[in-house]
Each structure stands twice: as structure tokens, then as C-alpha cells.
């Protein structure tokens, strides 16, 4: 089963615009991560936010976490054509002494040059 539901499923924007994608999840978590997947490739880690944090920044990425609403958002500022990819949230649950990661359904981002 998938823990995260992402919204929107697909997003198309112009280069230079900001892209925002949202993730909602069902159970308590220890951390939430965002990954990017280019077509036909493996996933690449972008950013991690822990359950006691509300906001993190990394370059053009900004992620927020609202544990009361069980939701997170990823903002990509000043998007580039190279940002075209699928983006997935993954919730980290500490279980039996190790982390289990459950991925969301993903947002397909297309940045038009």
C-alpha cells in the first residue's frame, strides 16, 4: 500500500516559474523525504525533513511539513527545463529498529523552455 498521495498528479509550467507539489500521508512518521526520478532512471534523493521540523531549504528547494495535517509540500523556485521529472514523497517509519520507507504516487512535472 502507498502511504502518500501526491497532488497534483501532473504539472506543466514555464521555465522560471515556481512549482509546488503536495504530499499527504496517513500515519505518524519519523521523517519525510522527497525524491526525483528522471524517465527510465532510478530515484535521486533531494531533501529530508524530520518530524520535529517545519521547514527546510536546499538551494532552489523548499520543503514544509505539517504533522498535524499529515502533509508536506515541495517548492521548486525558478524552475528549469532540467527539472522536468517525476517527484515522489517518501515517509520514513522507524519499525523494528530500522527505517521503512513508503512512497507516494508522484507528481509528474514538465517545465517548458
Amino acid at each position, binding site marked *: *500500500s502507498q502511504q502518500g498521495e501526491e497532488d497534483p498528479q501532473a504539472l506543466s509550467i514555464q521555465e522560471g516559474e515556481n512549482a509546488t507539489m503536495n504530499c499527504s500521508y496517513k500515519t505518524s512518521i519519523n521523517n519525510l*523525504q522527497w525524491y526525483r526520478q528522471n524517465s*527510465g532512471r*532510478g530515484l*535521486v*534523493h533531494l531533501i529530508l525533513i524530520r518530524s520535529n521540523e517545519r521547514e527546510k531549504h536546499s538551494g532552489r528547494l523548499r520543503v514544509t511539513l505539517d504533522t498535524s495535517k499529515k502533509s508536506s509540500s515541495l517548492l521548486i523556485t525558478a524552475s528549469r527545463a532540467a527539472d522536468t521529472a517525476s517527484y515522489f514523497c517518501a515517509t520514513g517509519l522507524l519499525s*523494528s529498529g*530500522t*527505517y521503512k520507507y513508503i512512497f507516494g504516487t*508522484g507528481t509528474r512535472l514538465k517545465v517548458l523552455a
Partner: protein
Amino acid sequence: EAGVAQSPRYKIIEKRQSVAFWCNPISGHATLYWYQQILGQGPKLLIQFQNNGVVDDSQLPKDRFSAERLKGVDSTLKIQPAKLEDSAVYLCASRVQGDREKLFFGSGTQLSVL
């Protein structure tokens, strides 16, 4: 640092045949995950190893899927017999034990069952 290695990159088989995928995680990574990603969906966890022991295989269809991680390093995932609905990308990921939560993924094996 070398990444997570997976092979083969692509595999085409007919239904009811058997297939095996191989994964070599990053050196020193104790935790290894196998995910199944059907086209247009997010990765679904099949099985998780900690060293050579299974931590979670609750989503693994055990009547046809099996996985092992001998000596706590390389891992193989097998499907026998394959069904049409097994067509997917099979992703292997690894993680350092302890406080480092980031997953490192291989490029995956794309399986087509005809």
C-alpha cells in the same frame, strides 16, 4: 563512491517463465530494499533486509516472489512463475545503518512479461 549496481537493465520474458534480478548495494550499507514500480505509480516496497536478515516482506507475493541476501551484501530477487501484472521496474536501494536516512537507488531492471 560507487553507486548501487543492478542487472540486467532490461528483461523480456513470457508469462510462466522465471526471472532473477541482481543488486549490489553501496559498500557498507547494511540495509537493502527491493521496490516494484509499475508504470505511472510510485515505488512499492517488496522486501527489506538488514544485513542478511529479512526485516519486512509483508508486501512480497511469496507464492511467486523470493529474495535472498547471502552474506549481507549482494541480493537477488526472483519471480517464478511470472505473470503479466509483474511487468514493472524493479528498483534496489540501500542505506547506511543508523541515523543516515537517505536511500540510494540503482537504475532498476525493467521487466516486460508477454
